[in-house]
């Protein structure tokens, strides 16, 4: 009997303390990407329906927690198929995500994909690593595996 209560409490506390994903516009995202920072910025473009995205999120969470010089932002692309943010927020709560989660609330991706990165096809998952100090940026358009993020960070540092 004690365990179900503990379980219930855990569920409740997760739902109480989970972050709510902020809905942002393209100009907000462009602003965040361009803002000078001492930290390396990692932007991961994902969606709740995207299996390889969901699979790689633990790698981004781990990086965000372990490397103090890196800020990870998980940019949800769910809006295009489902403008209701509930599904994203439920996912954030269930996985208890610690990295910052935002929802890009913009329609007609054809008009703005190039404005995020000209080389991006729009395929998910995609990860953009930005070092505003060196001015270097790297875009990866496939599922990340162990060690990939560390390699990318190294590349934008030098």
């Amino acid at each position, binding site marked *: 009997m004690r365990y179900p209560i503990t379980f219930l409490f855990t569920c409740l506390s997760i739902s109480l303390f989970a972050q709510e994903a902020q809905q942002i516009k393209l100009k907000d995202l462009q602003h965040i990407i361009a803002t000078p920072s001492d930290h390396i910025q990692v932007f991961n473009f994902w969606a709740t329906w995207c299996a390889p995205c969901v699979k790689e999120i633990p790698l981004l969470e781990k990086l965000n927690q372990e490397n103090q010089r890196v800020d990870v932002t998980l940019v949800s692309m769910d809006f295009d*198929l489902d403008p209701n943010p509930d599904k994203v927020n439920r996912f954030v709560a269930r996985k208890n995500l610690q990295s910052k989660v935002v929802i890009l609330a913009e329609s007609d991706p054809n008009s703005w*994909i*190039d404005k995020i990165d000209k080389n991006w096809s729009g*395929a*998910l998952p995609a990860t953009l690593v930005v070092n505003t100090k060196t001015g270097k940026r790297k875009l990866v358009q496939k599922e990340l595996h162990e060690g990939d993020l560390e390699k990318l960070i190294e590349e934008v540092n030098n």
Partner: protein
Amino acid sequence: MKKVLMLVICVVMFVAANPVKNGYGVGDVATDFKLKNVDGNMVSLADFKDAKGYVVIFDCNTCPYSKAYNQRIIDLNQKYAAMGFPVITINANEGSGDSYSEMVRIANKKKYKFPYLYDESQEVAKAYGATNTPHVFVLSKDLKVSYMGAIDDSPRNAAGVTKRYVEDAVDALLKGTIIPVTKTKAIGCGIKWKRI
């Protein structure tokens, strides 16, 4: 020995100066392919003797965007195959949900009247530069890439469409007029590439 070395250096420099191009751009001439259809037969574009052009679509069994567009793909073939622009769909995704047997099951269930081809080696998807699904390449009769990108501007629902990119491109080719939009980008499921 020196000559061999010089030759090696020349080859290396040539290769380095000519990086492998990532797929086609608008205006490039696409290459034909020969892939296994869900009915077991091998299919090439050249098999469509009376075609005036082709609507080649890289698709997927499992992707929510592919599911959202499934009926619209069936409708495209329904409308344009008789007018000389058959739809040819290709699945290049790795993964159990996109196996050949699953493709056969879906094509039968949805009563596909167009080929659904298995690009097991992913070579065709790579040659074309397909990135996400569904990714459309409208080709003219001489295989020139005339349009590449999304089917339309409203994946969420067909009722919300304001720009019918593929229909506009095919209509323009049929009429011999200028294609209004030749390239678009869309959010979608990245093709699940084999890990090398």
